């Protein structure tokens, strides 16, 4: 294990005890940061390792969130509901991957975005999803803490998976596909299989994240779950993490959440505008992030 990994592990372990020392405001802020990290790391499995930008990956987040909400509202135990949220997204990705996995680069990005909008439209019109009214549910005691620890566990799992992939032969194979798929095929790599598996793993984690998000929010509706702003935030973070794909999503999620909070609390009427300007400037001046790898 590298020194940076140990520091990171220490920081995450610190996060496990932090909720006992902070007030509800900071707990909410910290949870928002970890939630955004989970979204980013899930997308990063496909984006960093295979070079596929799933701009509409939020579709699986929303689908998992609805599955969780419906099951949990029908008295299914919390953990089982969360797990089934992830599994349902995985199954959905399995069904859609024969179509989406035929596409590459921006075609793939646009197709996933269209898929997200289709699901949003469906969710707004179906009875089972509560239509435009959405689904609300009663939460148990300590729900904020449960959501925090669930997100944190998810984050830890995603981080370990990312570190494993970054240093394993499996990850190397995925990077080879990202570099040049034709060449990868010519050296015996079954690119479609790897892409499909990564797509499904991403969908599974997004589904789980969606489930925890619903629980944390106590209410879900289509415009919240399939909000394109979630994709914008995620890909802003992933773009700035390009030169540091293992730790970058964590660092930039923290930065983004703090920036958002600062702008929102100090400039209530202008925070959207200022955030937009900040995003444009950051992408303009640091197109591959601010942490550069030594060559």
């Amino acid at each position, binding site marked *: 294990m590298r020194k940076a990994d140990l520091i990171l592990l220490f920081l995450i372990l610190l996060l496990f005890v932090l909720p006992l020392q902070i007030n509800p405001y900071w707990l909410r802020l910290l949870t928002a940061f970890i939630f955004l990290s989970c979204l980013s790391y899930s997308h990063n499995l496909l984006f960093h390792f295979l070079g596929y930008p799933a701009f509409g990956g939020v579709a699986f987040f929303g689908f998992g969130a609805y599955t969780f909400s419906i099951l949990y509202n029908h008295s299914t135990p919390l953990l089982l509901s969360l797990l089934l949220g992830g599994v349902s997204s995985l199954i959905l990705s399995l069904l859609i991957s024969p179509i989406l996995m035929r596409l590459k680069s921006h075609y793939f990005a646009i197709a996933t975005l269209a898929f997200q909008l289709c699901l949003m439209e469906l969710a707004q019109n179906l009875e089972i999803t509560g239509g435009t009214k959405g689904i609300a549910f009663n939460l148990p005691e300590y729900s904020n803490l449960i959501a925090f620890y669930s997100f944190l566990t998810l984050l830890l799992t995603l981080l370990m998976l990312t570190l494993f992939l970054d240093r394993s032969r499996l990850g190397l194979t995925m990077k080879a596909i990202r570099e040049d798929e034709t060449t990868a095929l*010519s050296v015996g*790599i*079954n690119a479609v299989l790897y892409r499909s598996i990564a797509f499904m793993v991403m969908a599974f984690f997004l589904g789980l994240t969606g489930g925890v998000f619903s629980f944390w929010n106590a209410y879900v509706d289509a415009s919240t779950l399939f909000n394109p702003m979630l994709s914008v935030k995620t890909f802003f973070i992933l773009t700035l993490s390009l030169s540091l794909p293992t730790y970058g999503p964590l660092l930039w999620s923290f930065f983004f959440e703090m920036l958002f909070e600062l702008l929102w609390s100090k400039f209530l009427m202008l925070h959207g505008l200022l955030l937009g300007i900040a995003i444009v400037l950051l992408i303009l001046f640091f197109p591959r992030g601010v942490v550069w790898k030594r060559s």
Partner: protein
Amino acid sequence: MEKVLEVVDVKKSYGGNLVLDCVNLSVKRREVVGLLGPNGSGKTTLLNIISGITRQDSGALRFKGIDISGLPPYRRARLGIGRTFQIPRPFWNLTLWENIQIACHHAEKGAEVEELLKRVGLYELRSKKGGELSLAQRKRLELARALALKPSLLLLDEVFAGLNPASIKEIQSLLKELKEEGISILMVEHVLKALFGLVDRVVVLHGGRIVYDGSLEGMAQDQEVRRAYLGERHITFEG
């Protein structure tokens, strides 16, 4: 001698443009065959069809007696068909070591990365990234990567193009060694002099058809080859 590769009546067209028209070709074990022809005659398309990157419209392909016509490229690679590309395609952001390791890991019979890098003279550069190499080094890397598959058949697409005489000589020697080891080679090439003493025979494609199949020396005497590829002015080969 045992046939390693058989191409039977292969046809390929793009839109209305017929690129390969009933091509029949075979490569025996330990045989080096030069695939020649003017630009656009279908040479690279044929290599792509054999390696599975492009699918033929009709016809069959057999590798060591196995019908591989419908197999995806990665399955053909695992069976032992290695290839290089006309414009080298290293994994740009992976190190040389990783470039070879990828192929060793996925071939059914892996080879040692170190041994391969030493063999092509790139061991000292093993920590460099694929994108940092010169053209000649990239070509060597591609060759090593193809060898990592422990291939029975090597498909080489203009491996001598753009190389200086010293590099050409080194690669010639390596290819001769590979031939001695029992590897068959089908190579597309325009640097005809580099083929001298290396190939057992040449096949000339023109307009998607094979117009010549014979010795390199005899090719210059063939009227159709001269008209289609070499030009009307007399060409001689010096050993």
